[in-house]
């Protein structure tokens, strides 16, 4: 059985060590926060929140506390605030241990495409994705293994406009966990329960190495 979205987030969360400072993108990445219980992890948000806690309980929302996805949040003990310039200084200066993003495509050289689906996109929206791709200490992608119509998202070279070059270190999909190694490319780490390497290879657009 391939992983559900929630299981993908949980699988990724299991690999996050205590103490890391982590920035989570919108979508499945955001769900990672629900699965690190028991470990102290510092969640940073581009809009200047360092140390986000879980979503607020009904009736306890503070409208001045939101994350980069514009969702209401709470603060952990130890949280602090900075403005946007200082927040991105933290991101671009290499102080975020891990950034987790979704993707349209990941190439075997680590290139990431996740912001625009065409060079002629009307008004593509980049947000902080390029800053995170260029600046975080490491970038993991969590995404479905293929598009809805079955095309591979793990590819030899990205066809969509790039977000960052050679920046993806690891990919978590519904089928597998795959490292992106310099010079080598995609290397299988782990399969979802009941999924075979052959299936992963059949649904990928680039060679998937395995030991």
């Amino acid at each position, binding site marked *: 059985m391939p992983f559900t979205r929630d299981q993908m987030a949980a699988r990724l969360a299991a690999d996050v060590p205590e103490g890391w400072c982590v920035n989570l993108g919108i979508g499945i990445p955001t769900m990672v926060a629900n699965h690190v219980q028991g470990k102290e992890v510092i969640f940073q948000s581009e809009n200047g929140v360092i140390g986000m806690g879980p979503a607020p309980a009904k009736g306890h929302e503070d409208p001045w506390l939101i994350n980069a996805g514009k969702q209401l949040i709470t603060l952990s003990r130890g949280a602090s605030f900075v*403005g946007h310039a200082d927040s*991105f200084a933290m991101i*671009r200066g290499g102080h975020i241990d891990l950034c987790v993003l979704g993707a349209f495509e990941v190439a075997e050289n680590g290139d990431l495409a996740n912001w625009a689906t065409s060079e002629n996109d009307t*008004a593509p929206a*980049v*947000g902080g994705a390029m800053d995170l791709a260029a600046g975080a200490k490491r970038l993991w992608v969590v995404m479905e293994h293929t598009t809805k119509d079955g095309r591979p998202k793990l590819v030899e070279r990205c066809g969509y406009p790039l977000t960052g070059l050679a920046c993806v270190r690891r990919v978590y999909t519904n089928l597998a966990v795959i490292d992106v190694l310099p010079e080598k490319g995609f290397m299988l780490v782990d399969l979802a329960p009941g999924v075979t390497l052959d299936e992963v290879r059949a649904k990928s657009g680039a060679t998937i190495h395995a030991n």
Partner: protein
Amino acid sequence: MINKIVQSVAEALAGVKDGSTVLIGGFGSVGQPDVLIEGLIEQGAKDLVAVLNNAGVGRVGVARLMELGRVRKIICSFPRSSDPVVFETLYREGRIELEITPQGTLAERIRAAGAGIPAFYTATAAGTLLEQGKEVREFDGKRYVMERALPGDVALIEAWEADRWGNLVYRGSGANFNPVMAMAATLTIAQVQHIRELGELHPHMIMTPGVYVNRVVQVDRGGDWVKPEQA
């Protein structure tokens, strides 16, 4: 006596000229100078360049300003929103210019303008479509893009508390773009919820010293838990 507090939104926005570059603070619903934007709509300045993170939601605020044909160009990181109808229509019809800048680059370009730095290098966008038209340079074997400072004629910002020197204290995630924008404009106008006596704000809590602020107008929504209208 220094007193930057003005008594009306109209007074706060007096003198904003056609053709101005307007830096607009806020991120999501938090820290938006929504009342100042309404004031700018009233005030009448046109041919504006708007610098902000998003390109407006629905038909209010910045979206309304655009719909009225008052914005020539928008510089932002994320033109999409939950309801980007006005921007998308204008953009499709070629009636508004768009400059997309990565969010961190946007913040850093504004800071640079405030800090006297005409240009700097960043790895963000290197090798991507957004480096097109920009100077690229290697340092220590790595590729960087040169980005230019982005100053404003006017900054419209929001804060939680102010005093008559224009010192500002933000609340929660309300700082966001506001402190850098305050640094980078010739005329910085702040909308605040609470006015405090001089000396009441803790010196270490003031994120924007009044030196950066020209005018302060109070927009009291009556306490901690009232959400700004644009939310």
